[in-house]
């Protein structure tokens, strides 16, 4: 138990009022400021670091490997959280959420296919150095930024290898490498808290504590996309359910502010 009864009731009553009064005066759709850098890891195809004002920090490095197309999933995310064990549910559930989102992105998979037999496998490795509120949004921002900076080596052998048995050959010149995000944008997962009839973007730990539930909504190519689902916020007490009409408000909120989040992260 991290908060006192009176703190929680103060917070809850502030957040359910209309309009909601957030403890840091944010508007419902306002994301906390983040800073980001790209291409700062050696030995990667793309990388990013995202830091929030509260000190939360996430690093993503993207690497590739040529595999036979029959060898299962082409996108392999992993999440390490400093100080957490491998078998802890949090990093695993975050990795699962990323896997779900990235695999539901046909544009990305299309970029990975090399030939009839071979493809790139994309390793999206994330390290959360520290966090104060639920790290899903921050993680997703970092992955978004890293994918935007990712380049793949140029294929110089034939694309059609149905008849020949040939291992793909690449141009050694890194300047010839092609960016993976050509005419599309990677998916962004936004975390929202539902408190009463209100929806709040980028909730803090305290806000989640008094929320009915947390919801993640995927934003891709300027539209809401799958997956959309409830997120376990671990407080366990929020089983009271919420009004389905709030879901529409959540859609509206994401629709109206996701573009701002995207422009914040790429600037």
């Amino acid at each position, binding site marked *: 138990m991290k908060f006192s009864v009176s*703190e929680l009731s103060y917070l809850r009553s502030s957040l359910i009022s209309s309009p909601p009064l957030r403890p840091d*005066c*944010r508007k419902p759709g306002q994301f906390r400021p983040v800073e980001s850098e790209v291409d700062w890891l050696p030995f990667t195809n793309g990388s990013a670091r995202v830091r929030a004002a509260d000190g939360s920090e996430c690093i993503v490095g993207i690497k590739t490997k040529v595999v036979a197309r029959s060898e299962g999933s082409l996108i392999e995310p992993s999440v390490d959280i400093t100080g957490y064990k491998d078998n802890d549910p949090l990093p695993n559930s975050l990795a699962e959420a990323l896997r779900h989102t990235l695999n539901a992105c046909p544009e990305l998979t299309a970029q990975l296919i090399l030939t009839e037999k071979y493809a790139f496998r994309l390793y999206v490795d994330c390290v959360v150095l520290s966090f104060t509120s639920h790290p899903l949004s921050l993680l997703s921002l970092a992955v978004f930024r890293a994918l935007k900076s990712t380049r793949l080596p140029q294929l110089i052998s034939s694309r059609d290898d149905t008849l020949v048995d040939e291992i793909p050959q690449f141009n050694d010149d890194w300047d010839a490498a092609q960016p993976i995000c050509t005419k599309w944008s990677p998916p962004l997962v936004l975390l929202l808290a539902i408190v009463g009839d209100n929806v709040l973007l980028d909730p803090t730990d305290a806000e989640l504590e008094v929320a009915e539930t947390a919801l993640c909504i995927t934003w891709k190519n300027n539209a809401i996309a799958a997956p959309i689902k409830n997120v376990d916020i671990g407080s366990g007490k929020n089983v009271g359910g919420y009004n389905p009409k709030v879901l529409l408000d959540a859609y509206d909120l994401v629709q109206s502010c996701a573009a701002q989040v995207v422009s914040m992260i790429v600037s």
Partner: protein
Amino acid sequence: MSSSDSENESDVEMILEKAGLVTPGEMITDDTIWMRGHGTYAADNVTYSAVAGTIERVNKLLSVRPLRGRYIPVIGDHVVGRITEVGNRRWKVDIGASQDAVLMLGSVNLPGGILRRKSDDDELQMREFLKEGDLLNAEIQTLYADGAAALHTRSLRYGKLRNGLFVQVPASLVLRLRTQVYRLEGGIEMILGINGYIWIRKATSTNANAAPMDVSINRLEQESNSMEIYKDENDPIPPSTRQTISRYANCIQALVYNEVGINEARLRAVYEASVVYTDAGELLDNTVKTDIVKQAMATL
């Protein structure tokens, strides 16, 4: 001694001039006249620094104050803390120090007046008074040999906190003042714990006198007679007050971002400077934070 004293004076000058900053393993002095305080250690009668910090001298005591570090409790400090554990006739309280502080059952006001003895019943219902997660303000009463603090709340000024918002800042940014409780613009009261834990609340009639130093025992007894002081429910707080509380919280964060020490005058000035931003959510922006703090500091 007089001759050695004057020698010492020049020695002091030399020590203090030493760039103002020492780092671990750096020799401070080989003069054995000095007593060694915090942040130092001795080897072969030579005093060395154990931390990166500044040399401080009180009479014959030399110590090094680290640049950063957790809050170090001092007797008499007014702190804000959070209960972490309810134990045998005592609570453990997180005050941001390296160890939790102890609050003995005998060091709090209980319903029925302070002068009565604590009974076994009291022991059984300790959670009725204070439970895990609860916030309180208290004074550091004593320090144990291992450095842990013991608290007391035996004054009307101290006790369980409600009607507000908790903010945490580095203890090194809280400036020590005559009082740590302020009445602020907009019906707000702030308890600025020396330990960097801050409580911003709606000012009420009972805590209207910022520091009722001279409350008579009778009044104290009356006040503490009921369970009122351990209530969890908040009083009605209008939205405007909640907004003001949050704006103050953002102003505190602006000072922290700029590493400016927090006191009443500065906070008032930053609040004044923040008013031009009608949407207090804009205060989260780093350039705005720097801007309002700069403006505020210029007015002081």
